């Protein structure tokens, strides 16, 4: 079953085509890596799929709903972790969990036990009463991810979830992602750490708003005769003409 379908999805801002007619499909339970240099259009594409931005042309379906005409239905079935940390810094750890659980309509009697369970899983039980602004970035990312998946969405969108954290924390973060995928959740993740691409079932590489390659990491390495994903990425990204802003 397809959880995400994009058909010629395009987004233009004035004369600038941020996303240029991209098409792909993502299976249920798959970890789909969405790679590309800065400014390649990854975030814009992801925002369209999440119903945060309306496509200029083409169409897309997420969890069976049209991203343009049924955006609010899409939103009820996904989790989203933005590139910029966007939880409430002036709320405590447990208060952030409670707020978003409430917003997504998690049953009242389940919120409390599930909060404790989640915090225990990410080793934040001791920090439950700490204001979010006071915890380190790596912990914030883990918290963001847990909140994005708290209501058991079909699909979770992660926009550079491991930006700026140390390798060990990144490794643990990917364990969490893999665990979620094993539980049947579809994961759509952008990154520019090429070692992380190896953890994905399939990856797509975006250059200048277009998808230039899409396959499993193994096939891509073969196709580009490269020894790792880093080399694949370099070959493709060199073609980019767009100037990073």
């Amino acid at each position, binding site marked *: 079953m397809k959880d995400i379908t994009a058909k010629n999805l395009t987004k233009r801002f004035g004369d600038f085509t941020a996303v240029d007619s991209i098409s792909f499909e993502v299976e249920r339970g798959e970890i789909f890596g969405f790679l590309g240099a800065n400014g390649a259009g990854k975030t814009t594409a992801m925002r369209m799929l999440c119903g945060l931005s309306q496509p200029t042309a083409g169409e897309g379906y997420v969890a069976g709903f049209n991203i343009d005409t049924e955006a609010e239905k899409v939103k009820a079935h996904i989790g989203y972790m933005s590139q910029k*940390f966007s939880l409430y810094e002036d709320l405590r750890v447990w208060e952030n969990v409670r707020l978003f659980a409430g917003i997504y309509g998690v049953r009242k009697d389940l919120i409390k036990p599930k909060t404790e369970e989640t915090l225990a899983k990410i080793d934040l039980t001791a920090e439950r009463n700490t204001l979010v602004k006071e915890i380190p970035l790596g912990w914030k990312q883990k918290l963001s991810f847990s909140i994005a998946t708290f209501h058991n969405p079909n699909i979770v969108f992660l926009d550079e979830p491991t930006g700026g954290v140390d390798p060990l924390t990144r490794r643990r973060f990917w364990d969490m992602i893999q665990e979620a995928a094993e539980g049947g959740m579809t994961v759509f993740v952008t990154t520019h750490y090429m070692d992380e691409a190896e953890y994905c079932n399939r990856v797509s590489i975006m250059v200048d708003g277009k998808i230039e390659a899409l396959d499993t990491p193994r096939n891509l390495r073969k196709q580009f005769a490269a020894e790792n994903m880093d080399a694949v990425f370099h070959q493709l990204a060199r073609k980019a003409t767009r100037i990073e802003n």
Partner: protein
Amino acid sequence: MIKYLIEKEFKQIFRNPFLPKIIIALPMMAMLVFPWAANQEIRNIKVAVLDRDHSTISRRMTDKIDASTYFILSALPATNEAALRSVETGDADIIIDIPQDFEKNLISPPQSPHKGGSADIMLSANAVNSMKAGLASSYLGGIAADFMSELRNENGLVISQPLPVINVVSQNRFNVFLDYKIFMIPALMVMMLTIICGFLPALNIVSEKELGTIEQLNVSPVRKSTFILSKLIPYWIIGVCILTLCLTLACAVYQLLPAGNIPLLYFLSIVYILVVSGIGMIISNYSSTLQQAMFTMFFFILIMILISGLFTPVRSMPEWAQWLAAANPLTYFIKIMRMLFLKGSGFADLWQPFLVLCGFGVLFNSWAVWSYRKSG
């Protein structure tokens, strides 16, 4: 769902290092300081009397002016130049020039070579503050007339048969002693509600935009109306607290209780808060930075306050300004507050402005919901 959002708003407001203080301090300032300072009664006008007559009557006239609480006799210049200089240096606001032969003119018989039975004094006012000058002139006119009748009674001057005189007896209803503070207090309450319940929502949504937290809400299935309502309700509650604080202070400090029904006062205020908070939300929705929201709101609140009858009566404005006043929700609420507070009007007298406020409330809040964009 909305319960969680409202809970969050309150936590954020109370944890803000600044907001709770301002919410308490501003109404206290407004009730304890402004009624004394924002006072349009003119007192202590400095008068220079240029007495060229040096007669008994001119001296009595001078004493009478000095005795009035409105005037302070600040100088007794000897020459016209000295008098003018005292105005220039700010020692006097007004010059009274009592000419030579003032007494003679006043008491000599009508047929004499002098004017007889009447005399002129000249009053020159510094009209930089035109209100002060105007009021000073009319107060002095009153004093002069008073002095005249005093003189007449004393020695039946010149007059063989009494002139017909119309005595105006005035009674000031609803504010018996024409206490300006009583006039200002309801208006100041309105101002507090407007500023606090207008500015805070205006800054709220836009600060979520700046921090990026709004993204996490926009990607959730929260309904637009739920979102706006969750922003409005906290300001409703804050507004009611501000009103209570103001009423308590007005009662404790000025012994001023609303003459009308207090629950009705609250009810109408709640409708008004809805209107100003709605305006704040709209501005917040269209702004992308705090600065922008702040200045836009400031602009609108300034216009609303100046063209509302808060300080100056609407009926004396030019017609175009009266139209603006009619499109200004504040105009209606000031009217309601003053009527309810000072006259004790009931709902039967207030339903018209009430309906207009309801209309504004529906309009602005629908607009706020409509202009809130969950996707771009």
